[in-house]
């Protein structure tokens, strides 16, 4: 196939060849970038390993960011849930703990994979890991899922943006959730069309999310928005594998995200001049940090 410009294009190509979206993505990218399929696979398998390492580090470790604003919450949540303190069950608690774990490692200057960005790096590892664990899926299936996610991300980068400074948090955590939802569906053995529906269902629920980091740091509310992104992705996966569809097709949802991003004032696009960043508590935190 030619350049990847729509999720519908990916779905049609997959249906035509009776393939997963992941397979279409790796073959097309191999052709377009002039890199072998094996080299792409090695690169993605390596990145998946880094993702798992960062996830484990955040779950067991007691992390603190340089500012001291975030760290340790993932560990606390996992401990509490493992002792039976959970309403929706251990897998859900671990899902959101893992998303925060990776985001905390990032805030603490640990090693992560930007997916698609550093600020939203927790969503994809947490969703792929947890779906894989629930279904006892082999490692290759999880690396494949990372390729599925990359395919959705390519389309978003082409039609809209993955940058918070351009499109707000919807472009970072929203995109990560859409990518993770499609990836999760492919791990379950769902169809390419169901994967596309999951991406739409996830992104629709995060449209309009602004980027308003306290003191301009990738900490508050970023770490917990990774938990939000993972839970929205989980919701979208459940809907999609039940056969529920999105009335608005995913490519149109992505286009809507771009329009919304353009309509957002600059103060809500990573400048720390609006939203949560200018609340009395945030301003107080900011002045304390600047003094020290």
């Amino acid at each position, binding site marked *: 196939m030619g350049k990847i410009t729509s999720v519908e294009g990916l779905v049609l190509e997959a249906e035509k060849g009776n393939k997963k979206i992941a397979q279409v993505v790796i073959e097309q990218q191999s052709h377009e970038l002039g890199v072998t399929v094996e080299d792409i696979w090695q690169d993605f398998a390596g990145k998946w390993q880094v993702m798992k390492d960062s996830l484990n580090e955040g779950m067991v470790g007691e992390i603190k960011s340089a500012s001291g604003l975030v760290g340790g919450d993932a560990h606390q949540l996992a401990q509490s849930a493992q002792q039976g303190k959970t309403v929706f069950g251990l897998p859900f608690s671990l899902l959101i703990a893992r998303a925060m774990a990776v985001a905390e490692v990032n805030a603490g200057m640990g090693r992560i994979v930007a997916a698609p960005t550093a600020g939203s790096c927790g969503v994809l590892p947490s969703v792929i890991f947890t779906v894989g664990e629930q279904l006892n899926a082999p490692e290759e299936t999880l690396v494949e899922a990372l390729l599925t996610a990359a395919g959705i991300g390519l389309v978003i980068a082409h039609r809209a943006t993955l940058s918070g400074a351009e499109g707000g948090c919807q472009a970072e955590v929203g995109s990560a959730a859409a990518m993770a939802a499609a990836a999760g569906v492919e791990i379950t053995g769902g169809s390419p069309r169901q994967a596309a529906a999951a991406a739409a269902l996830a992104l629709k629920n995060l449209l309009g999310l602004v980027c308003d980091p306290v*003191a301009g740091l990738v900490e508050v509310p970023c770490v917990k928005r990774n938990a939000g992104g993972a839970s929205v992705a989980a919701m979208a996966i459940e809907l999609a594998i039940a056969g529920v569809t999105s009335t608005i097709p995913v490519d149109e949802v992505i286009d809507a995200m771009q329009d919304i991003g353009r309509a957002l004032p600059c103060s809500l696009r990573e400048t720390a001049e609006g939203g949560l960043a200018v609340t009395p508590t945030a301003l107080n935190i900011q002045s304390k940090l600047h003094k020290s």
Partner: protein
Amino acid sequence: MAGEGGIFDIIGPVMVGPSSSHTAGAVRLGSMARNIFGMKPEKVEILLHGSFASTGVGHGTDRALAAGLLGWRPDDARLVRSLETAREMGVNIIFKSTDLGDAHPNTVLLCLKKGKRYLEIQGSSIGGGKILITRINEFNVELSGAHATLVISHQDRPGAVATVTEILGGHNVNISSMRVSRESRGAKAMMLIEMDELPPYSVAEEIRSSLVVEDALLLQPLTSMGV
């Protein structure tokens, strides 16, 4: 391994957090400065502008720039200790805030010194870990670091460009972009040549021996691929 763009940019880079622009991009800016300087500096004065100055410390921008100056990559876990390591290695780094006018919000001016050797280099982190070098000493440039690049400081004289392109042609290297600037006729000049492929390292030596050059440096492309 080759491979820039596409899905490698969507899932990646592998990096030390917390910010692709303020951390990963800053490492790359430090690396470019070190590579263009061509050796380990003794003293580096780093002037931070805009968002680099206001939120830089919280994002580890200072440590990231130091890591780059030490030749480390954006995914090097030693990044958190780069300032200490630089001191131990005898690299004296000083940070200051500055106002570079209407430059990009994430801009830094690095002044590198070793003995008589001195280099000023200005660059910006323009998003997603991508960078742009905008000034080398007195010359305005546009250098992304994405391609293999030759940086040649030389005396302006007829035939200089032809000499260099002939050497590259001899190695079957294709030039993708070229920029020549000079202070004035017959004075100091700079050639920046981006190439499709990385030529053998001996070309820098060949250029030094066939042209009146102050310096000729070959820079490897920065890449987002690989872990």
